[in-house]
């Protein structure tokens, strides 16, 4: 029962141009002021993501943390590192936020990190400044 908004095939007026794909170093946020919000944009091997630059926990600048994979659930005292899900790690209390969904990795909290739609077209990167309008059941 999910009605997902179709991804735009053309840049409309919600989108801000934030630079060229080549401007971005992998896993390094670039931060922009978009529609009054501080938004971090990052290039990863899974594509581009954009998140609100404010940690829902205590307000730290998420984009000054780290981006990468994380440890998945495992047996006691065993570790399994995976990059199937990429997270942003808050520079303060290290809460992990899934770049694609804004959900807390490991469900340590029900709070969510705001994410923004990213569009890459002709080697240029565009970010929608308003919250992504995705309808989920």
């Amino acid at each position, binding site marked *: 029962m999910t009605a997902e908004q179709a991804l735009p095939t053309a840049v409309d007026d919600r989108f801000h141009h934030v630079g060229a794909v080549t401007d971005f170093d992998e896993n390094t946020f670039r931060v*922009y002021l978009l529609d009054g919000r501080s938004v971090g944009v990052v290039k990863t091997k899974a594509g581009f993501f954009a998140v609100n630059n404010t940690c829902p926990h205590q*307000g730290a600048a998420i984009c000054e943390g780290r981006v990468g994979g994380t440890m998945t659930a495992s047996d006691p005292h065993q570790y399994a590192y995976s990059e199937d899900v990429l997270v942003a790690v808050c520079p303060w209390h290290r809460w992990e936020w899934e770049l694609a969904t804004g959900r807390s990795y490991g469900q340590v909290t029900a709070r969510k990190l705001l994410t923004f739609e990213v569009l890459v077209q002709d080697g240029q990167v565009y970010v929608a400044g308003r919250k992504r309008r995705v309808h989920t059941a």
Partner: protein
Amino acid sequence: MTAIIETGAEATDRSDIDFPVIDCDVHPMFGGVQVLRPYLSPRVQRRIFGQEISPVTRDPNRIPHPTSGLRLDAVGPDQGPPGSNAEFSLQQWIIPFGISSSVLIPIQAGSILPWGDEQAGVEYLAALNRYFISEWCEFDSRYRLAISVSPYNMKSAVQEIEELADVPGVCAVFVPHAAVAMGRSQLFPMYEAAERHGLPVLLHPTGGEGNLRDAPWLAGGLPDTYPERHSMLLQPGQAILASVIFGGVFDHFPKLKVLLVEYGITWAASMIARMDKAWELGDGELSGLLRKPSEYVFDNIRFTTQPLDEPPKREMLWDILEMVHAERTVMFSSDYPHWDNDNPRLTLSTRLPRHLRRRIGFETARETFGARAGL
């Protein structure tokens, strides 16, 4: 590393906080021990410069933090470690968060705990004190220093207190917690000097707890994960509390304040009840104390907020704050620039009940540090 096009500095405005804030736990650090050279004798330079002064008084491999014990966003333009640049800390923390006065606690003082060369320890702490007075307190009056003294050498501890008590910026005495019970009478000369000068004595984990033979141990045996160990750092705080109270420190020094910084608060509710019960089981008389333990806690002990509890319902925390008379005993702290620092905009607004915000935000600290609070 972040490429910042437009700064995304930490969110909300301060509209909820219309009072001054005293931050009772900020950590300055020296990046390289060479900065202490001007303050050290050649022999002690030789002793110290061959060593690596860890910020946390233990080998990092013993129980490494999985990411870092410091904030990932607190490295300044000079690339020194977080907390090593007074200007940067001012711009990142003190000014934007409206801190009117901060208590600097240099936990690198804990390095002396295992040193058998007592004289080197004394000189190193004296160097630390003068360095931070010069580079931080004289840089900005919002920086106040807890001067470090050696628990092993009372003569030098007293001398240091006498010399520095009235230096502008000095506000407390920090004593690294060694394998010496804090209530023992051998420490009384230090307590006496501190009380006489109106200086609180401040305790804070050094990192040596549960790691060095020359530091207090944790309960049970040895932890084997970082969260296990970190969550048990309240225990040395409990040990200090029990020791100073039942050791009669406050019968001898009724005006003295002992500050338990970064050990937590809420464990104190049931511990206070247990201490009173222990006292009652001996009819009061057996303990040798003049008063009930809880009275000393409320009069002479202060706790700091960070890390502030995150219960399922904040009213649970509020209930415990009432049990420990938080309007008298609790002071705000951030623990900047450690990884788990608390944002004062949240601590001093929605996380605390309205009637406690000003008390915790600055009033109790102002009473505790007196004019030295700088307010």
